[in-house]
């Protein structure tokens, strides 16, 4: 369908047991789509966690998702970062490359272009760390596949709005 939109939603929640299950259960129970979900405590004094969800749906579904999230008792605020203006979105990936010889050299060369860092190395392997937009990471991973990529670990997207205004 043509009117499917992709939105990044930031949810500030009271950090209590079961909150992630509530959010995930809401998405699966109502048939909403989760493209990416990240969560971590961001304010330990007030015991607040931030969940960043990338989701897809028609405008009516996106509106429902936000209303349903707001309705959860431990949810403080829901912000649709995509709708509210320009955002910075970042994701981190760790890639493990195995092999030796020409492919190993080539992967190092490409890593340099993508500003990937080597965070572990042995004679026959590297672990690269890259941050960037999900698209950049996709591109990097695709390039690495033929060069001995054996394992990928991604964090999922975190996002924040540009400018001085805060949630």
């Amino acid at each position, binding site marked *: 369908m043509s009117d499917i939109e992709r939105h990044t939603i930031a949810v500030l929640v009271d950090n209590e047991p*079961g909150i992630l*299950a*509530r959010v995930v259960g809401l998405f699966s129970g109502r048939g909403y789509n989760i493209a990416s979900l990240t969560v971590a405590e961001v304010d330990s004094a007030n015991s607040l966690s931030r969940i960043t969800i990338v989701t897809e749906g028609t405008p009516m579904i996106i509106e429902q998702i936000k*209303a349903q999230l707001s309705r959860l008792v431990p949810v403080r605020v829901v912000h649709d970062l995509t709708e509210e203006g320009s955002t910075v979105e970042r994701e981190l990936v760790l890639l493990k490359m195995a092999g030796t010889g020409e492919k190993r050299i080539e992967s190092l060369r490409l890593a340099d272009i993508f500003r990937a860092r080597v965070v572990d190395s042995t004679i026959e392997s590297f672990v690269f760390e890259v941050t960037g937009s999900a698209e950049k990471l996709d591109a990097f991973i695709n390039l690495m596949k033929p060069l001995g990529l054996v394992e990928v670990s991604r964090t999922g997207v975190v996002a924040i709005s540009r400018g001085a205004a805060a949630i």
Partner: protein
Amino acid sequence: MTANQMNGAEMVIKALGDQGVDVVFGYPGGAVLPIYDALFMQNRLRHILVRQEGGAVHAAEGYARSTGKVGVVLVTSGPGATNAVTGLTDALMDSIPLVCLTGQVPTHLIGNDAFQEADTTGITRPCTKHNYLVKDVNDLARVLHEAFYVARSGRPGPVVVDLPKDVLFAIGTYLAPEQVEPRKSYRPKTDPDPARIAEAVDLIINAKRPLFYGGGGIINSGPDACKLFGELVEMTNYPCTLTLMGLGALPASDKRYLGLVGMHGTYESNMAMHGCDVMINVGARFDDRVTGRVSAFSPNSKKIHIDIDSSSINKNVRIDVPVIGDAGKVLEALISALKAKRFSPDKTALSKWWKQLDEWRKRDSLHFDQAGPIIKPQYAIERLYQLTKDRETYITTEVGQHQMWAAQLYKFEKPNRWMTSGGLGTMGYGLPAAMGVQIAHPDALVVDIAGEASILMNIQEMSTICQYRLPVKIFIVNNQYMGMVRQWQELLHGGRYSESYSESLPDFVKLAEAFGASGLRASKPEELDDVIKQMLAIPGPVIVDVAVDQKENCFPMIPSGAAHNEMILGPSDKQSGGSVSEEGMVLV
């Protein structure tokens, strides 16, 4: 020990007292024994011992819906909690405020597959408004007070508090409700945005073919909101239809009332929904039983939607003017805004609209013929209505055709008099619900309008009813079929009545007697009035078994996937437009 030091079980009793709870519906078991012990040692709080935990939840629903208060349930861990799940789901769907206390294995055994352990918060997460697992006795009082607040505020719903047994024995500090700060993350919005009120008023003033569509949210808001709703309907002289959950929000005798709307609603209500130019939804949620095919739903109207829950807005139907807030507060704001504008309706347009509505009314879509020696189910309900309407009567129902006929034919003048399972459609709801209503209103007449199949789903509660001498009347409209299923099989499955015949039914008169109640039977139309009068004259509980026409179908009916103007009006009308589309077949 100082006065606010006590064990968890005592805290539970104290918190219930401080929340104004006077009755708890429950069933004991190992994990909640400390609470039963604390109950034993006091006499303020009344405990009603049900016969199955499912009965306790429906009883609490009946209690809550008929009083506007929070219903309270107490069950043990494991099977006690899982038996409560249907009732919790029912309460969630129908926005009924409940607090359900469940026992749990001690904290150090959680996760060990301990005896009677179930992941109660996990299981009930999707079927409660919120739930808690209390692991520290010093959190207990706060959580209990918060649970009551969450259950009754905003859009009401069921809340579960899971209580590990060691927490019930542990000593901690009790906090009174006023010592508990409402949490920042939960602040339901009750006051409407004035800008939205202005937009709504604009639409209301300029409407040519307006319609009020009132729902359960008005009942949730309370009797004052219902009064205001009546006031608004009267001052505008606009027609009004109600959902199954909204019955009683406007007196049925009001001349602007068009009757039930939706799948089994009246012709005039549904035609008005289809033809209106401004729809004013007050506390209804555009349920699929009401809208029919969404793409053909009220195609030419601007829609105002008043609801306390923003997730109800634009869920199924596109809204032009959403007004988020409590129905009572919104109605008050609308009325004063209309008064300030010296509102008077567009007389010419309105009288033209009323002329059309009166034409539709003439179709008399609820008409039935009591001819012949067999009692028509509609006639049974009509006579029950005529013989009980002048009393303080509360009606509960089970689920099926009898429920729909009751909704169509029993006229409610007041809110909170009609208790039915709307959203979940839970067979077995009516008998325990009637029990809860009767506990709350000991001197009122409480009748469960039942089907012979549904009543068997919670028949064990007859034992509770007899134990507490509750004079509940069970009026079984006995067609020996799961009538609603049979009707769908007739209309959609070529009359192949697969497993819908009620085989081997008990003798309901003897069954009543076996429980210690009275049993009566009516098989001929001329017996009916006498039997109902006898039922009313008996001071205790009575089961009335009314043998009715097995083949009767409930009309009007909007078949699944059809539009409001494609309603089937009666058996002879089956062909005209009322055929079910392929998309319709897959709908429930």
